[in-house]
């Protein structure tokens, strides 16, 4: 097949599949939350309530798209696009299967970290431009959260990099043929999962949003599809982090051969998306000083120790 055509199809496919997954996650999260709260959740529209996604989308497109008169208009308008663009760019380096990767960069992991950090800008800009005290507090908390988790998020992955000798995600997956990195890199895995919760601003670490105290925080003033973009961005973020957990620690597309590799990849991703929802259903939100203390005093030293230990063992046994 023509290579350009293949990549075009792949890009369109990845965009389409990811946006569909993000939309379906709205339904999935509501159903799973309901299951764990002994309810049914949306089950009226279509089979199992699946058409709820469509109904929600139609509804949100027809909502009034209101821009607060006191807001910084242009920043206010472009803020929600940041999270969507950044997270969708992040999917460019995710290997969905052997050969099924939009761009197998040799710095793929760094690219992912950079893109997922850029997503935080939509929180700062959205919160600041809203000109609203709750949004401002939300944005401030977002900033506090970013500086406390970004550091150890990157460091927690360095163990994986040391073990696989590469920043390329395809090589990282191929290095897990014998044993998944979750076993030798268990500390790194736990730290990355915690950082992932903070990164995608999900409960219990949804401090910038905090419905109960900040009235939706940084997106209080958003309505219509601009709010919808924050929402879709959040679900895309969950999907990206889950895909990265599956790729980095659970062998990506690798798996017994009775299922195609892509199916294995999506199954693993779904498991971690479910974990995200489960944790949201189970845990309360910490104060942000607690989150920062946890980040700086516990997780950062732990991840440094992890890098140190992995590096020492690699030097002693490896090559």
């Amino acid at each position, binding site marked *: 097949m023509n290579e350009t055509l293949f990549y075009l199809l792949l890009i369109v496919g990845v965009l389409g599949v990811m946006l569909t997954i993000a939309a379906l996650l709205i339904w999935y999260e509501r159903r799973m939350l309901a*299951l*764990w*709260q*002994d*309810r*049914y959740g949306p089950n009226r529209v279509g089979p199992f309530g699946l058409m709820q996604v469509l109904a929600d989308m139609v509804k949100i497109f027809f909502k009034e798209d209101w821009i607060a008169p006191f807001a910084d208009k242009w920043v206010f308008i472009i803020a929600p696009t940041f999270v969507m663009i950044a997270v969708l760019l992040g999917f460019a380096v995710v290997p969905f299967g052997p050969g099924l990767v939009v761009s197998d960069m040799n710095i793929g992991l760094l690219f992912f970290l950079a893109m997922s950090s850029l997503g935080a800008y939509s929180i700062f800009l959205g919160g600041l431009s809203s000109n609203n005290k709750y949004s401002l507090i939300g944005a401030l908390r977002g900033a506090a959260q970013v500086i406390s988790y970004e550091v150890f998020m990157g460091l927690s992955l360095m163990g994986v990099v040391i073990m696989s000798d590469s920043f390329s995600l395809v090589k990282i997956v191929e290095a897990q043929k014998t044993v998944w990195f979750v076993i030798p890199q268990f500390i790194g895995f736990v730290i990355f999962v915690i950082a992932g919760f903070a990164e995608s601003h999900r409960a219990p670490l949804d401090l910038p949003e905090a419905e109960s105290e900040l009235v939706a925080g940084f997106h209080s003033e958003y309505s219509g599809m601009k709010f919808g973009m924050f929402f879709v961005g959040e679900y895309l973020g969950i999907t990206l982090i889950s895909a990265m957990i599956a790729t980095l620690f659970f062998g990506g597309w690798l798996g017994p051969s009775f299922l195609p590799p892509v199916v294995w990849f999506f199954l693993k991703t779904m498991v971690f998306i479910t974990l995200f929802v*489960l*944790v949201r*259903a*189970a*845990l309360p939100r910490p104060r942000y000083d607690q989150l920062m203390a946890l980040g700086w005093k516990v997780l950062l030293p732990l991840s440094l120790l992890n890098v140190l230990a992995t590096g020492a063992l690699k030097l002693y046994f490896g090559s």
Partner: protein
Amino acid sequence: MFSILRSIWLTLLHTFYRRFTVQYPEEKPKLPARYRGRIVLTRDPDGQERCVACNLCAAACPVDCIALEATEDEIGRRYPKFFRINFSRCIFCGYCEDACPTYAIQLTPDFELAEYERQNLVYEKEHLLIDGQGKYHGYNFYRVAGYTVGGKGKGEAQHEDPPIDIRDLNP
């Protein structure tokens, strides 16, 4: 740390719990025997209206949703000329049933009162009157009350002694 993992695990166990939701239109909720819903006006065992238009229910109603006007028929029996309950105001407190001296007004377990037009929630007497006796069987006010009504004089009611001549000294 342990408590966090434990609460996640306990939440996961809820996957296997029974769901509390009653899927209403298909599955009817189980109502208590004394559930207070739609108000009805009942008839006595002879098929006559029990209501004597005493206005006690309207007086007892805390939201003033009952309106009625008394009138009499040719044999001297009191009945409401119109009887109107505005169910958009009714709070189903049951005070009217409590106040009613003749068991005429009663609350039933029917709660499905939704209407598309608000005006349709105003029930007139023909909507409220039912053919049966409701919760209290065999009670007929005019048969037990010492009230003169066509065909029944003083002292002819059930459990009633004939009237005493108060100017007579004999026992």
